[in-house]
């Protein structure tokens, strides 16, 4: 909830965006006044912006995570049904990784790093295994350790990989997890990266590719990553079957055509990515003949980033966080300004700052797709074209 004092300051700043909004304004969640002027859907986007329906704001209010006054929570993952969420939880400067259940009323501490150790950015979740990283320096890239925690309760947090002396050209650590497999790219001496696939059950670590690659991620049983011939040159998606341990996989044509995908996100069925200038959001899903444009923005003033996919819903963040509904070909704004989202299964976790002050409190909520009826349709909306496109194998 946006606090009364700080919220008014945020609204004052936000007025600028309101003035720039021509139409199609939406209502921010949990706010006593309808603040949020949404942006109009540009002519370049096929989807349109709509007001947030009452059912959605109700679901968001129900999914609010209660926080203590001095508690700063950053959600890093949600369970498939939204019944649990996982967050970096800071109180008085000490940060722990925690699990929230029972609408946030129950908090279980998973891991508290020892003094002089910090959480990294390598979070991922496959429905059972929560992956996270720690580092002993505050550099973007430094020595790191990767941990896994079994949400089924069979195994506590345990380290399964580490890098004590990353090469200077190492990229920041990012992970993806599915079916007990974890993948990440790790810098190697020639300036490239090695894609690792680690099996949490067998404890076996394999390097499946060495090249100039972006973040690898799982799409069902397929391992996908962007690859370039050299740094700062255009990349294309590559794929391997069988969790990266099998043969090269021919991606469907709409995915093969992607030029320089930015912020690629997928649940194995639906894919979302941004144009190279982060100005246009595209989506494609199994069965579609071609990709769809969800939103186009003026990249001089706004950007499309941090996408996540949950069933028929695609989220992204620019000057605010939005959820697009593939059922209705429309989207709505769900934060007053900025924010971020995570998704898994058919649940979405959204967080946004209560003020523009850095290090301040946040509002966080978790919503399930089942609690979100399709957004209103737009005039001229047409059914998503269906085509005979090969399905990606799923786990």
């Amino acid at each position: 909830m946006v606090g009364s004092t700080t919220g008014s300051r945020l609204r004052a700043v936000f007025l600028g965006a309101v003035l720039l909004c021509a139409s199609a304004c939406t209502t921010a969640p949990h706010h006593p006044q309808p603040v949020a002027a949404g942006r109009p859907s540009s002519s370049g986007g096929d989807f349109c912006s709509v007001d947030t329906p009452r059912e959605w704001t109700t679901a968001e209010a129900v999914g609010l995570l209660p926080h203590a006054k001095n508690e700063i929570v950053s959600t890093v993952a949600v369970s498939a049904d939204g019944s649990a969420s996982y967050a970096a939880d800071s109180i008085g400067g000490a940060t722990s990784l925690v699990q929230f259940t029972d609408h946030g009323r129950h908090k279980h501490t998973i891991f508290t790093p020892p003094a002089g150790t910090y959480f990294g950015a390598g979070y991922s979740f496959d429905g059972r295994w929560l992956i996270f990283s720690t580092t002993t320096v505050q550099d973007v890239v430094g020595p790191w350790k990767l941990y896994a925690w079994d949400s089924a309760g069979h195994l506590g947090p345990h380290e399964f990989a580490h890098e004590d002396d990353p090469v200077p050209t190492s990229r920041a650590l990012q992970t993806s997890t599915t079916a007990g497999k974890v993948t990440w790219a790790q810098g190697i001496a020639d300036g490239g990266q090695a894609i690792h696939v680690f099996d949490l059950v067998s404890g076996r670590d394999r390097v499946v590719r060495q090249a100039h690659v972006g973040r690898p991620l799982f799409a069902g049983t397929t391992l996908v990553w962007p690859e370039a011939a050299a740094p700062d040159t255009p990349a294309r998606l590559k794929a391997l079957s069988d969790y990266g341990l099998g043969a090269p996989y021919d991606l469907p044509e709409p995915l093969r055509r992607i030029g320089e995908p930015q912020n690629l996100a997928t649940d194995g069925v639906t894919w979302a990515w941004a144009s190279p200038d982060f100005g246009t959001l595209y989506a494609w899903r199994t069965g579609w003949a071609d990709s769809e444009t969800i939103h186009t923005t003026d990249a001089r003033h706004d950007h499309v980033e941090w996408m996540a996919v949950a069933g028929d819903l695609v989220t992204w963040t620019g000057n605010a966080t939005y959820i697009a509904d593939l059922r209705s070909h429309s989207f709505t704004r769900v934060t007053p300004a900025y924010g971020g989202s995570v998704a898994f299964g058919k649940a979405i976790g959204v967080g946004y700052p209560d003020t523009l002050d850095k290090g301040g409190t946040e509002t966080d909520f978790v919503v399930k797709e089942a609690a979100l009826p399709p957004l209103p349709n737009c005039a001229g909306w047409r059914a998503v074209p269906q085509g005979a496109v090969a399905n990606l194998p799923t786990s």
Partner: protein
Amino acid sequence: MERIKRLTAIVGAACALATGVGGVAGAAASAPAAIGSATGYDPYYQLKIQLDRPGADGFAADRGTQTPYVMSAGKAAALKAHTRLGVTPHSCNPYTGCTGGVAGSVAMTQQGQEANNWCGPASLVETLRQDGGYIGSGTWGTSRATAQGWAARVLGTGYPGGSGTGGTGWNQQDAFSSALNSYNNHGGYYDKVSVGSPYGDYVTDFMTRMESDINTGWGMAAVAYEVPNGPHLVGHPNSTIYHFFNIYGYDDSASTTKYEDSATTVWSSVPPYSNYNTSTLVEIISGRQYYW
């Protein structure tokens, strides 16, 4: 007031990350083909003699300012020179821009940082190249001699990828303006402005100064302070990140800022050149500083 104090009291490192949230994926972006040209080119500065600059130990003292309303005597003199040449911008508004010029840019000089903790050296080299300044060559350990290696020595950044250096850290943020003043080719001053808040005068002053510097052929630099779920530079993940970057131009009467990001070698999703809403960019810088 309390809020401003809190922000200005924050210390930390640039090219650094704290408790992280989320992540991004993507691929490397290619650099735009077009090369920008200086707008409002100033023959006054062309007459300056390029001096052999002093070494790393000899550069001038930091000339930082702590409020948006104050500038050093040297910077004021430089601005007077701008005024005489008729390129000083006029009134600026966060939403409508400045009245002094629609667009301008200096040379596009982006280079990927050679080590993940070298955003400061990369940004220094990028800015000095825009200024036609002196750039040396230096090595660290067994690495080859490079401009960023020289800059890392000047700034005291530390070994490439060195653990525990804290990137281009807090104390080196003073060294950054000192280095700019020692090695730029304008004979002019760079001031460091600590941005205490993302509001009001901090935004309009930034716009005014960006327009002034770019119109007279100066590049700028700044330090981003990004927090989870807050605004980030394009392509950065949703984490806490401290990061030096270069500013090479403006558009839309300074309501849009054009910047270079050396982190193309840190996250594959980072474009070398981006445009950004100026008000939001100042929000990203708030709690840290810019150099103009």
